[in-house]
């Protein structure tokens, strides 16, 4: 079928729009596909190294497969072959990432373009009213097909059975496809891109919770809940053990149904309008919305609440998993060593908790970076021009969002410490002391997380055009150093580049001025110096 045959129909111009979408996403799309493929490949490979023998894997399956917190996080384990362990450990999460890729892709090329007025521009050309929706779905489908092919390839190369690898790849990508269709539907329902993204991500979150609760409740409980979740289907297909191909019908049927619903709604709704109306807001500003700080809070609070919920959930579950972590790792000296390296100590529970807190610090650094980069978004979108034409100075404007980044990061780390402390403490029966201990362990990450955000401020002030890519590269490098630095035997000065190398590995090490006070002070000063440099740059440069 050629697209020129579609001229004059509601699908006219689909080909041109799809090509435009590929062109606009020529970096993002390969990056998503690459990251998901690389993560699966490297993790399957390292699982093979960590649990080389059937006996070691059987021990892992016996402990990990019955640790409710891990089952809650990752899903049920159906076998102890290398493939089955890989599918257990990474299946649900890979499906989540494929779904995120699909959601962002579809909303970006439908609702976001409509909101920005770009679709109006192309819509007035010889482009049918269903063309954008179709093009977005085609691009998402292409991305998922590419991901399927690459996943099968790398899984087979790692040495896993072909049939199981095909099943494993397909459970991940059919879930991605289903969420592409759900996003397409959300794009018709909502009155804006943000709301549409919110609906689709909400469905993804609900899918995760349904399967988590269903899985963790055990056979006697509400285990059928897993069957209600597209993410649950990824486990229910049991790749590498039974390869239940018929389960793949479920995501494909959901894709078809959601796509059909999206098309029906796209035909009946007006351009620019959604079926769920935008709620009217206040006709006058409240006393809170008074200056740049009130505005920054108003703009960023929703995102912060989302991060807080994510942190509470993740770290409560990770904390709860700490009990029994010793027996889980029992079969693998290498994994014990890995945790000991990341956590910086040998007592395995403390090492695990310290490692979890390190991850909290890294995630909080990512939040802080995104909060700082809001400044750049405001600048490129044009709101900064309006704001800076008022009596708001550049410094105050910059500080307003930096303040949100600092407070938000502190709050997130506190949430991580509290949640992990409660999760672990309630299972061991000593919630009070564990909460206090882990709260401290989380809060010592703050200066390091803020130092990473400081790099974003410097880039924004001195090299605004490179700031978004640059700041995320910094975050990526910190994550790589923290997770793989010692495994890759990087030299000490490379490790020392990351502020997280200098954070005391709490809980477990003695808290002294030398181990804790001095590094925290230096990291705090570094963060401050970076922020001051960035703001000085902002005062000197052109805006826009």
């Amino acid at each position: 079928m050629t697209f020129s045959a579609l001229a004059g129909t509601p699908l006219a111009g689909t080909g041109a729009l799809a090509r435009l979408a590929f062109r606009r996403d020529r970096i993002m799309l390969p990056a998503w596909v690459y990251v998901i493929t690389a993560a699966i490949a490297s993790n399957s490979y390292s699982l093979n190294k960590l649990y080389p023998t059937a006996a070691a894997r059987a021990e892992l399956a016996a402990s990990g497969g019955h640790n409710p917190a891990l089952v809650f996080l990752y899903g049920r384990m159906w076998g102890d072959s290398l493939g089955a362990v890989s599918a257990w450990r990474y299946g649900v999460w890979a499906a989540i990432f494929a779904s995120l890729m699909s959601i962002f892709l579809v909303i970006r090329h439908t609702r976001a373009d409509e909101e920005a007025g770009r679709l109006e521009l192309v819509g007035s050309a010889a482009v049918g009213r269903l063309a954008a929706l179709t093009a977005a779905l085609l691009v998402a489908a292409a991305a998922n097909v590419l991901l399927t092919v690459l996943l099968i390839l790398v899984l087979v190369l790692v040495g896993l059975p072909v049939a199981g690898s095909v099943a494993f790849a397909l459970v991940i990508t059919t879930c991605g496809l289903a969420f592409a269709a759900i996003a397409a539907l959300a794009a018709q329902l909502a009155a804006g891109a943000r709301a549409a993204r919110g609906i689709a991500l909400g469905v993804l979150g609900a899918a995760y919770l349904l399967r988590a609760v269903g899985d963790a409740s055990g056979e006697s409980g509400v285990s059928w809940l897993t069957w209600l979740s597209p993410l649950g289907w990824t486990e229910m297909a049991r790749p590498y053990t039974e390869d239940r191909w018929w389960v793949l019908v479920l995501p494909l049927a959901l894709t078809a149904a959601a796509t059909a619903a999206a098309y029906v709604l796209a035909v009946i709704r007006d351009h620019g309008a959604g079926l769920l109306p935008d709620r009217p807001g206040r006709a006058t500003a409240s006393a809170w919305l008074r200056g740049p700080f009130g505005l920054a809070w108003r703009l960023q609070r929703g995102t912060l609440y989302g991060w807080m919920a994510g942190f509470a959930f993740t770290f409560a579950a990770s904390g709860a998993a700490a009990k029994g972590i010793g027996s889980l790792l029992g079969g693998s000296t290498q994994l014990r060593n890995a945790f000991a390296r990341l956590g910086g100590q040998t007592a395995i529970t403390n090492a695990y908790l310290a490692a979890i807190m390190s991850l909290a610090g890294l995630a909080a650094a990512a939040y802080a970076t995104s909060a700082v980069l809001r400044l750049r978004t405001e600048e490129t979108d044009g709101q900064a021009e309006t704001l800076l034409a008022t009596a708001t100075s550049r410094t105050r404007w910059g500080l307003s969002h930096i303040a949100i980044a600092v407070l938000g990061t502190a709050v997130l780390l506190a949430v991580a410490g509290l949640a992990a402390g409660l999760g672990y403490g309630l299972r061991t029966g000593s919630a009070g002391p564990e909460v206090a201990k882990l709260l401290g362990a989380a809060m010592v990450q703050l200066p390091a997380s803020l130092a990473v955000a400081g790099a974003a401020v410097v880039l924004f002030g001195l090299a605004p055009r490179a700031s978004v890519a640059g700041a995320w590269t910094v975050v990526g490098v910190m994550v790589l150093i923290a997770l793989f630095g010692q495994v890759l035997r990087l030299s000490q000065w490379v490790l020392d580049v990351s502020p997280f190398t200098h954070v005391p590995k709490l809980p477990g090490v003695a808290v002294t001025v030398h181990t804790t006070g001095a590094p925290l002070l230096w990291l705090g000063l570094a963060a401050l110096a970076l922020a001051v440099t960035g703001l000085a740059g902002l005062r000197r440069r052109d805006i826009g």
Partner: protein
Amino acid sequence: MTNAIEVRALRKSFGRTQALDGLDLDVRSGEVHAFLGPNGAGKTTTIRILLGLLRKNGGEASLLGGDPWRDATTLHTRLAYVPGDVTLWPGLTGGEIIDLLGRLRGSRSAVDPKRRDALIERFALDPAKKARAYSKGNRQKVALIAALASDAELLILDEPTAGLDPLMEAVFRECVDDERQRGRTVLLSSHILAEAEALADRVTIIRDGRTAETGTLAEMRHLTRTTVDAELARPAVLDGLPGVHAVEVNGTHLRCEVDHTALNDVLTRLTAAGVVALTCRPPTLEELFLRHYSAERTGPGARP
């Protein structure tokens, strides 16, 4: 009379592109000044330098007696700005944004709630709607209301009617007229000439980052030609008269363009031939404008 804005030989380049190349602009206090030029002539760049958003590469610029870069924050308490491409915060309502911008300008330019509500009514804006749901015209209205409701001495409006329908454009013109009555200074950048013609006391036309012409419309017309259209009793001969251009004779019908210095001589010849009907039309701003720009397109000395 003092000047609210004084710009001399202003230069600004972006990389290799020279956006402003010696621009002059004087806006007197209390006047409505139209700042005209096609897209890309440098209007917005000039305004952004005046707002302290961009740093000039050379020349002088003063705004309300201060340095637009160094004194930006204090100067901004005395002015209100409407950008050409209004972007608002999608999650805030129009009413919230109007109030917020008023508060951000500081107490000296605070929004008077009565004026605010009256303007919302006049522009028929729904202030409870989220900004993401507004059309371009409605976004423009939000920024205009926020600026007009303020007590600022100087209004800087960058193509303020670009998204407005004709009805709202008329409301806008009334509002600018009101502001003139209240003694406020308005810098109105535009490429809509009818708007400038209807509103402006003085006009500056810029081309390629330089001032092409500046003055009152009367002064500028003075420098250019009047179109004369006459029905005569007998054919008249204008040959040999200096300052007469584009003569078209069709029997007893004559049409030509006349420099103002030659008007008297032309009329003498026409009355000598016996005038049956006569229209003399001063050049419209559009003709002035086109003269500058088509000269540019077709090379120096070419006629429109």
